[in-house]
């Protein structure tokens, strides 16, 4: 066993820091905060030009040819800089999906530009009446010659306002079991009949409801086989499922320790209070455990194992720990925690206030905690299903 990231990862860290110092500034943070849109075209293209969007892919496929430990270091630095990564994140999930399921044409015209930072793809699984039960999607796609006609509504289509495509889960056969009648498509956001309405969120980031009224798209934008969309979407969901939020917890913890170490007017410091010390130490332990769970999922992927259960463990543990840590830290500082933050370039307690709000969604998106616990219970512990197969 070895827990050291190694010299190559540390070398990348230095390059990334220099790049971020040049390419992420307070103007970008200002624009992100104003619009709630965590995307910046110039930044995305600059990152793509370095091969750092698909940093782990081979160079000949538009990637950076980096080993996974270099990717870990790269991602840590990017997060620390509050760079506009949300759109790059959703885009990469679908670029990876196209790498598995896409046609040669889709790879050339959509996947490759996506990893260069030139195309943005939003996710369209969730609907007003279906979230965790994604396979219950009702948005219809009906074949008409070489085209498909799409009608329905998608919820939480975050970044649709800057996206070129929405990756859609649609129902193509309503007469079979729900998982068997789904097909996935890439719907251009320039299509007639496509419309967006803004949804404001607790964390400040903008999301959307997107509506599809008689949207016509060519069959060449179908991803995977007709009625086989669940296997395509499942692969994409699994990619999304294994993130860890331990890094976010370490960021808020560092701010909390720094602030608690400042002497107050009477010279006393919060960090000398046993109750404060215990709560900060608890957050530190949970961050360490969450980080290791995330590293395990990454390592398994690297050595050719499928970290289905381990990814779920990392996601549920680290997001729940992130929420607990932010709540405890706000308590420690009491009314001084009230000042509103925006989570972008914040270096004081306001960062934790924002993180407290933001952390709620980390337990919801990319699979709710309950979905992940069911995956762990069923696929990991071998317990019986706790939900109807429908």
């Amino acid at each position: 066993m070895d827990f050291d990231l190694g010299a190559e990862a540390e070398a990348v860290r230095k390059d990334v820091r220099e790049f971020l110092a040049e390419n992420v500034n307070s103007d970008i943070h200002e624009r992100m905060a104003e619009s709630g849109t965590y995307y910046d075209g110039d930044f995305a293209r600059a990152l793509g030009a370095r091969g750092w969007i698909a940093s782990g892919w081979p160079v000949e496929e538009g990637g950076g040819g980096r080993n996974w430990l270099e990717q870990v270091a790269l991602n840590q630095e990017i997060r620390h800089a509050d760079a506009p990564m949300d759109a790059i994140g959703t885009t990469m999930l679908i670029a990876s999906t196209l790498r598995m399921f896409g046609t040669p044409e889709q790879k050339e015209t959509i996947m490759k530009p996506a990893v260069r930072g030139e195309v943005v793809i939003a996710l369209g699984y969730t609907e007003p009446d279906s979230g965790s039960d994604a396979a219950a999607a009702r948005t219809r796609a009906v074949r008409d010659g070489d085209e498909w006609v799409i009608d329905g509504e998608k919820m939480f289509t975050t970044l649709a306002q800057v996206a070129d495509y929405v990756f859609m889960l649609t129902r193509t056969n309503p007469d079979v079991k729900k998982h068997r009648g789904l097909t996935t498509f890439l719907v251009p956001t320039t299509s007639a009949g496509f419309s967006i309405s803004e949804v404001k969120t607790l964390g400040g980031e903008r999301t959307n409801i997107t509506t599809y009224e008689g949207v016509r798209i060519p069959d060449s934008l179908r991803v995977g086989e007709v009625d086989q969309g669940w296997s395509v979407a499942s692969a994409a969901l699994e990619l999304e499922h294994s993130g860890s939020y331990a890094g976010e917890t370490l960021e808020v913890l560092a701010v909390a320790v720094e602030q608690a170490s400042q002497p107050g007017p009477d010279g006393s410091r919060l960090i000398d209070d046993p109750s404060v010390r215990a709560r900060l130490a608890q957050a530190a332990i949970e961050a360490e455990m969450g980080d290791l769970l995330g590293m395990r999922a990454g390592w398994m992927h690297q050595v050719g194992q499928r970290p289905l259960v381990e990814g779920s463990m990392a996601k549920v543990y680290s997001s729940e720990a992130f929420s607990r840590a932010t709540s405890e830290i706000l308590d420690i500082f009491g009314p001084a925690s009230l000042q509103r933050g925006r989570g972008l370039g914040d270096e004081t307690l306001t960062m934790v206030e924002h993180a407290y709000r933001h952390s709620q969604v980390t337990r919801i998106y990319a699979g709710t905690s309950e979905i992940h616990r069911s995956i762990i219970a069923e696929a990991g512990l071998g317990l019986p299903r706790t939900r109807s197969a429908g």
Partner: protein
Amino acid sequence: MFDLGLSNEQEQLQSAYRGLFEREGTTEIVRAAEETGFSPGLWARVGELGGVDMSLPEELGGAGGLFLDAVLVNEVIGASVAPVPLAESTAAARVLAALDTDPARRVLADVLASGQPVTLSPRPAVDGRLGWVPAGLVADVVVALDGDRIVAQRGDQPTPYPGNLGALPVADRHITADAVEVAAGPEAVAVFADAVLEWHCLVAAQSVGAGKRAVEIGVAYTTDRYAFGVPIASFQTIAHRLADAATALDGAQLLARKAAWAIDSRADRWRPLAQMAFVGADEAAQKAVDEVLHFHGGYGFMLEYDIQLYFRRIKAWSLQVGDHRKELEAVADLLWGAPRLPAAV
């Protein structure tokens, strides 16, 4: 380079101990040892597998293995709640090895030659009394802090705590005129404190092993047990709580192994990692075994079911270290420095 895989030798090491405990029928041995918390027969078998020698340097008569190896073996011991004080013996032998004085070397050579358990007292002597020494009832030699001296005590009369919560071989020991001073001074005291931290890491491994076994017991029970016409594991409140228990224990296991790796490589942060490993494992194991005992319903309250053996020992191991909350505060000391005391008025 980062690698979470165990070596072939480490896999074999774990499976050798697993095989030993399966062959010997540990549950019966555990129940038979409820009075003393120690099985001399099982201890002899552990010795044949190289128990205490494992992580000691070859030039001192050890096998030259890693501290991580000892952590991996203690996971297996915890899984069987085997009544053998390998964690204490390992930590005590390692402090004798680390002290690098002639008396320490002589005591270590005696200990290894005798094959008897040895221990260290995590609490310093107070007026010659060493309170609640882990394995103090059965250890031939106790290594302890007495003022700024490290002493090796043998031949005193232990004061036992029969029928204690975890059936642990805990006892008070007493510094007598026979005590051998093996080292003294601030450096020696610091070496001793580090050995106590290593013991924390070994206890963490035991708790992780026991907690994970408790989850396995819980999975088997809730799958077999029907209520309202279905296995109770098909209720989300049970399935999800078992999932949380398994997850926290996996995190704690990774943390204990990372701390062991850091101890072996004397990496930065090894001290906070070892302390964090204890607190993380203790919390995860206590929570897991509480849940699983509860999922047994009334059967969990019966002595006949094995889950109570795990429930009692996991808490008792924690108490033997001290107050969980104080241990948590000690993590803060190691991460951010000791608290500043208010200025005297």
